[in-house]
């Protein structure tokens, strides 16, 4: 009898312990006070569609919704990915009533373009050659000179993502000496620690090396915000300088996607 009693008590104690130590739900948005000198509000969004669609690039009919979100959140700069070209950028700038300036990257190997929109009218845009593709950098002023790069790494090949990241970082390291650099975009790194697996695959290793390479000189500012794409994937990032102070609002805006978009915008308020 006493064995059963002990086991029953142990069972109840363990249940009580599990309830007691259960983690409280973490808030996705965190704010903190900071005594840093400047702050910048950045947004990145891959506005393309999921793989099942005929055309997975951004669709014209979604641009008003994209513009509406930008107006609502009012970021200082926006990094966009998977635009079909300059025409879509112009439509978007028009929808934003001239509040933003923007440019699209040069065409590389693919059929889609990265773009950057900036509030600062004095912003300048520079193409960033990364292997067979192009990212785009925008340089603008907010307290000090800031460079925001819109990047989009290969979706299907981790080895190509790694080569892309290395080329991008080579370019970034030269610019980081004279300006505060932020890198934003869809890197497609599959590194979620919650997807526990002991399989040591080459793809995982490449993504790990790429991400770690960026983190040698940058900080993953959106780490606490959660998934940025469907199927519980966190593949969109905003990286900022390691010495940046407290990060203000960090959020994935999950009500923003329209049509068959498979990504949500990531918003970061960085203080530096």
């Amino acid at each position, binding site marked *: 009898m006493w064995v059963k009693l002990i086991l029953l008590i142990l069972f109840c*104690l363990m249940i009580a312990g*599990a309830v007691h130590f259960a983690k409280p739900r973490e808030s996705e948005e965190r704010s903190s006070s900071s005594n840093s000198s400047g702050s910048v509000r950045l947004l990145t969004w891959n506005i393309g569609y999921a793989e099942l669609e005929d055309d997975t690039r951004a669709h014209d009919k979604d641009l008003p919704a994209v513009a509406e979100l930008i107006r609502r959140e009012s970021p200082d700069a926006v990094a966009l990915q998977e635009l079909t070209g300059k025409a879509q950028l112009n439509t978007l700038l028009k929808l934003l009533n001239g509040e933003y300036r923007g440019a699209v990257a040069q065409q590389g190997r693919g059929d889609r373009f990265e773009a950057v929109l900036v509030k600062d009218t004095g912003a300048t845009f520079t193409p960033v050659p990364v292997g067979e593709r192009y990212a785009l950098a925008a340089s603008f002023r907010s307290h000090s000179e800031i460079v925001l790069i819109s990047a989009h790494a290969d979706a299907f090949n981790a080895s190509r993502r790694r080569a892309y990241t*290395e080329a991008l*970082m*080579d370019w970034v390291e030269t610019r980081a000496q004279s300006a505060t650099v932020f890198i934003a975009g869809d890197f497609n790194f599959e590194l979620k620690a919650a997807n526990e697996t002991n399989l040591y695959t080459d793809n995982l290793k490449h993504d*790990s090396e790429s991400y770690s390479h960026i*983190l040698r000189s940058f900080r993953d500012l959106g*780490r606490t915000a959660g998934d940025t794409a469907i199927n519980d994937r966190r593949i969109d990032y905003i990286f900022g300088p390691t010495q940046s102070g407290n990060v203000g609002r960090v959020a994935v805006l999950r009500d923003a996607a329209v049509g068959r978009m498979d990504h949500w915008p990531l918003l970061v308020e960085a203080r530096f």
Partner: protein
Amino acid sequence: MFTLLKLELEKLFRARSFYLSFIVLIGFVVLMLWGFYTYAARKTGGEAVEQFKYTYESKQYFNGLTFALYSLLFSFTLLLPIFVSMSAGSQIASEARSGTLRMICTRPISRASLILSKFMVTALHAGLLLTFFIGLNLIVGLIFVGWGNLELYPGPLNLVDAPGKIMRDDALMRFGYAALSGTWALLVIAALALLCSVIFDSPVQATVMTIAAYLTLYIVGRVEFFEHLRPYFFTTDMEFWRDVFKPEIPWQNLWHYACVCGAYTAGLLLATVLIFERKDIVT
């Protein structure tokens, strides 16, 4: 109870399968050493930097502690549960098969005490296996690979979501913690196998059923279709033991899952006792 324990311990140390489990683990460490050595040589050689400029897989990264960690993580998922299932699955069923269970139950001992003593012996076996395996890996790692700090990167092993480092002495302490947390996690398998051992009269059937249940949940939990079911599998809760290797141990999370595993173990043991007490032993 102490006499029962003593008898069960004697049976354990006389069993060939007890020593076989240690021999297989030694074989696994040898295999791991060969794999790790050749991989490290390839990755730190000229070929590794031909394609990519940056890599964290340097000579400093590949050390005895990294070797021990990889070996432990790879084996914990599949190898150790098999031995624990074998040990626990044979506890009652093998007595039933050999006809000694009936004789034992005619003695003036409660069936509940018998189950408890058999479980405690299985728990000891699991603890010894894991401690031996960790110790062996660390010694082999020290002798053949050399020591350094434990560097962790996101992705492989999925322990961290940002690069981190655990200093050597602290890392050694973490392996000590892993022996405790790992044994605690393995007790869920032991309790399940003991339940199967009471339900089935064949030790092979009990062991196979336990491994089948474990592997099914483990594999299904990794298929994205069933991602939402994953939190309800005991195989998911068992993974808490790895948290001791995170640069900052998430203690609250660790205690939570340790309690969940404890509840599984206690619940399964209680069910085992209740079923065994009502079991008509006809063999």
